[in-house]
């Protein structure tokens, strides 16, 4: 009744090819943007903005980056956090050594540096596949973090290795409050997400998908394997690099190698899997799920403890959290291996027929 495309006739090619061809989708996206840009900054408190929403957006961007590589181009990677680290540290160095550079430009250049690193570590993908490649990308994870810790130039010879990020100043305005940082992150993420959405339905995106589905067949029909795979690594790493710069500048406020450990790589991979492999919407849903899950567990744990009339020691609590987190992931994979995006799709199909399913 509400959600169906019946009666929406397209008379021009541009109208037929727009990103969201169904009017209801366009309205929903517009409303989502209004909520994100206007309602949330007005309503949300500082804790929500700086501890939940900003990291959610940043991790969603990194997830999107990994999803381009894993979900669309089919190359499994466990080195996401390393690309983010490259982005964060290069942004720091651009800010430090070229202060005249506009901040957003230095973020973008940091992303380009991450893309270059991505291309180097993407080279093995031309020879190896599957889990071999996944383990090979671990080399990137360990090597990059090692290099960032050992080579003094990256950290500007900081003794502790933990550097305070410079202030983010754009056009003379200093982004210091949680709302500012949230808005900055949101703008970057929104622009990059739209770009990704468009890229993935262009020739490039189709090439990626052909390589994912069967690379040998893709090669046979004339897709250049080297170009396509390396491009996938470059674009994915660019997204991760920008996400890393944002992670350091708008979320942590510090630039440190330890923030970008293997654990983060795995978390982002979880977000891709749980959100839905090969789905942009899924990237956001997966990020939301993984960011909110520990908070939810904590919130639920309090009343339960109260109800049972006992206080659990902190160590026990964190272990229980670990178990529940792991079990939920397994449960989720069993129930819906195609991720949250698939659930959303099923919901939409149902909604099209509602309220007359026959």
């Amino acid at each position: 009744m509400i959600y169906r495309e019946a009666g929406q006739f397209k008379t021009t090619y541009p109208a037929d090819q727009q990103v969201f061809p169904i009017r209801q989708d366009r309205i929903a996206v517009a409303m989502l943007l209004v909520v994100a840009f206007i309602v949330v900054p007005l309503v949300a408190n500082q804790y929500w903005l700086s501890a939940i929403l900003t990291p959610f957006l940043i991790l969603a961007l990194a997830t999107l980056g990994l999803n381009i590589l894993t979900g669309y181009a089919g190359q499994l990677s466990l080195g996401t956090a390393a690309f983010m680290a490259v982005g964060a540290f290069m942004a720091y160095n651009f800010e430090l050594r070229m202060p005249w550079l506009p901040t957003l430009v230095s973020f973008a250049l940091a992303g380009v540096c991450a893309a270059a690193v991505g291309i180097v570590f993407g080279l093995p993908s031309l020879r190896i596949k599957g889990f071999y490649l996944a383990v090979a990308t671990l080399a990137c994870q360990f090597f990059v973090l090692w290099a960032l810790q050992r080579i003094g130039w990256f950290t500007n010879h900081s003794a502790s290795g933990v550097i305070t990020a410079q202030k983010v100043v754009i056009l003379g305005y200093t982004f210091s409050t949680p709302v500012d940082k949230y808005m900055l992150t949101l703008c970057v993420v929104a622009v990059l997400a739209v770009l990704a959405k468009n890229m993935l339905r262009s020739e490039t995106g189709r090439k990626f998908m052909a390589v994912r589905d069967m690379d040998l067949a893709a090669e046979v029909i004339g897709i250049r394997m080297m170009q396509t795979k390396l491009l996938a690594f470059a674009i994915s790493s660019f997204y991760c690099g920008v996400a890393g710069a944002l992670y350091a500048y708008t979320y942590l406020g510090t630039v440190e190698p330890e923030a970008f450990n293997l654990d983060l790589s795995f978390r982002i991979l979880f977000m891709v899997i749980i959100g839905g492999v090969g789905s942009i919407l899924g990237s956001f849903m997966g990020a939301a799920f993984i960011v909110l899950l520990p908070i939810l567990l904590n919130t639920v744990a309090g009343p339960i403890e109260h109800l049972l009339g006992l206080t659990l020691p902190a160590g026990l609590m964190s272990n229980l959290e670990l178990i529940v987190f792991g079990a939920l992931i397994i449960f989720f994979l069993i129930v819906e291996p195609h991720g949250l995006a698939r659930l959303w799709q099923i919901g939409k199909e149902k909604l099209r027929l509602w309220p007359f399913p026959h």
Partner: protein
Amino acid sequence: MNWQFFLEVLVGGLLAGVMYSLVALGFVLIYKASGVFNFAQGAMVFFAALTFVSLVERGMNFWVAILATLAVMVVLGIAIERLILRPLVNQPQITLFMATIGLTFVLEGLSQLFWGAQPHGLELGIPDEPMQWLSENVGINISQFDVFAAVVAGILVAVLAVFFQTTRIGRALRAVADDHQAALAVGIPLRQIWAIVWTVAGFVALVAGLMWGARNGVQYALTFIALKALPVLILGGFESVAGAIVGGLIIGASEKLAEVYLGPYVGGGLESWFPYVLALAFLLVRPEGLFGEKRIERV
């Protein structure tokens, strides 16, 4: 170059490599039989070692504790097959891989929930001291414990080889590894076989846990040795027991040699990434590892 020192580093590295092989073996067993890349192997090692140590500390006899831990690992293997593998049959490999990462969290949480998070010492009665005969006559220091670990690994591989080659279950395991469908068609119970494989992997995890625990203490850091076993795996090939052994030896030796001879030039800490880069360079020449199965691709 001082050849005695070189030899000492080399042998030390080879013996350390045997320890990696012990962990890699567990990976290979499961991958061969069920095509699952079991990331939880490290957590299983930790779980087994912690269970064993805690039982011994509570006054249980050494051998009884080993049997009890083995029983726990059997139950764990069956539970994993029931609760995780069975519902995920026919899913893509990456989904199974993610499920084992989830399993890692559960196992880490469970083991610390039951036995506490404090590190334990583990004494097997083999001192981690240089062998006297060697240091006196040849002039190189080789740890007694390392040699012991190598012998244990050798026995383990021999036992596994006999088990795989001669017993009925072993033959069934090899059949399943070869071709799931064909194995099902000739009447091999796939579920039982998977439960057995996970049990055997649990047993290997127990042995690896005992060795690593005696060496570094039983603590949370034990879960990270799984990461050490990964380059061994890609170097040796995912499907090959022999590959796990040879890969472990190569990684162990080259890692130590690199740390000693290259480390000083680049500021040390090479051990964290050198095995991976070595394995990566190796893969560029042989994409399926040393003994991995060659992929035949068709359109």
